[in-house]
């Protein structure tokens, strides 16, 4: 086992990006201290360790900070390479594919289109929902015949998609829409169950009722702002 040093994780109770890092640390059995931030009142620690974005999550290892969840996951995998599971495949081509899908989740479409569907109404919302449907089709195709997005073992792209399991039902409840269903997304649904069965992941979900309250308030806020500026 690599020399642990001191590991601290700055996150929030609900941050799905922070959750990815929690999973990685727990799955690899790395002891860490968790600090939940209040982003409306950012701590000195956060401002010091993530001066560029002042966002969570931030991993602090032996006093040095690493930001951006996907960058943190790769750092964890490389620093604690002796601790199973591997978070990226050994084969370079498969690694490239894993990184491609992780990026797809965050930057390219998946999350941004979810955001649009969630924070807008009317036609803009419909566009967001249509965009999500397209992305889910791609993900469904990629998952077919695979146990995890990373291959036989869970890995970084699975962590990147993790929000689907926890947050999508919350969004579905608030929006009154079905986004993921067994019929259209059999592989995705099975993957979700497989992810949820992992004890470390199952025990780390933020409380659902609190999430519903939080996200409903966020949607109301965005809709109110949009209506006020167009009214």
């Amino acid at each position, binding site marked *: 086992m690599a020399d642990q040093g001191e590991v601290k994780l700055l996150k929030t109770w609900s941050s799905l990006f922070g959750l990815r890092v929690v999973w990685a640390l727990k799955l690899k059995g790395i002891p860490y201290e968790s600090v939940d931030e209040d982003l409306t009142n950012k701590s000195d620690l956060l401002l010091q360790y993530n001066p*560029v974005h002042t966002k969570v999550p931030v991993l602090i*290892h032996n006093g*040095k900070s*690493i*930001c*951006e969840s*996907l*960058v*943190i996951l*790769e*750092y964890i995998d*490389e*620093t604690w390479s002796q601790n199973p599971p591997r978070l990226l495949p050994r084969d*370079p*081509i498969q*690694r*490239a*594919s894993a*990184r*491609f899908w992780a*990026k*797809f989740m965050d*930057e*390219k479409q998946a999350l941004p289109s979810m955001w649009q569907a969630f924070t807008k109404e009317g036609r803009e919302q419909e566009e967001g929902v249509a965009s999500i449907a397209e992305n889910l089709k*791609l993900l469904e195709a990629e998952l077919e015949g695979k146990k995890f997005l990373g291959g036989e073992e869970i890995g970084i792209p699975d962590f990147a998609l993790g929000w689907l399991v926890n947050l999508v039902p919350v969004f579905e409840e608030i929006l009154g829409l079905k986004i993921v269903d067994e019929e259209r997304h059999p592989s995705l649904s099975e993957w979700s169950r497989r992810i949820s069965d992992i004890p470390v992941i199952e025990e780390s979900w933020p409380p659902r009722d609190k999430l519903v309250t939080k996200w409903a308030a966020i949607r109301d806020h965005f809709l109110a702002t949009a209506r006020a500026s167009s009214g």
Partner: protein
Amino acid sequence: MEEVKLLGWWVSPFSRRVELALKLKGVGYEYIEQDLAHKSQLLLEYNPVHKKVPVLVHNGKTMAESLVILEYIDETWPNNPILPRNPYDKAMARFWAQFIEEKEEERGKLVEEASQCFITLEGELKGNKFFGGEEIGMVDIAANFIGYWLGVVQEVSGMELVTRDKFPVLCKWMDEFVEHSVVKETLPPRDELHAEFEARLGAPSWKY
């Protein structure tokens, strides 16, 4: 004999990043120019998800996304590394490459935000010749748009985001970057790039 092919577009800084990395490592490759207004069967087959360049093909296996490709290149041809070896420094390089990518995505946004981004990047140079230190690294490659394309965009649009008096450190980096012997080989001719952007002035998008 390894077979390396690159699907690219001469205008795109993203496909030029991959060319730069391959040339820095002395990796031979076949370049296949793409017409993004009329996407080829090859492109659609090799990058069905995004249908964009660059796409790298190595021994028949394909991959997309320039930063993902750069990591693959560095892992497969470890000579002249573009990423540091120790995990912390590597994480820093990845952070800055991602930062640059995100800011490029937000290109349409306010000039003030762009200026803040440049100030931040100047700080990150820390008196070094390149973001990678004495030698070019992943972050320099990721910042190629700023190093060269931005100048042309400014000329065409008349916008002045990066000037020598406002950003002396960044401009010095830009000078070093375009003068680097390998980088020079990968830059599209300035007058042709200028003409291309002028033609597209209504919709300056090189991310087809």
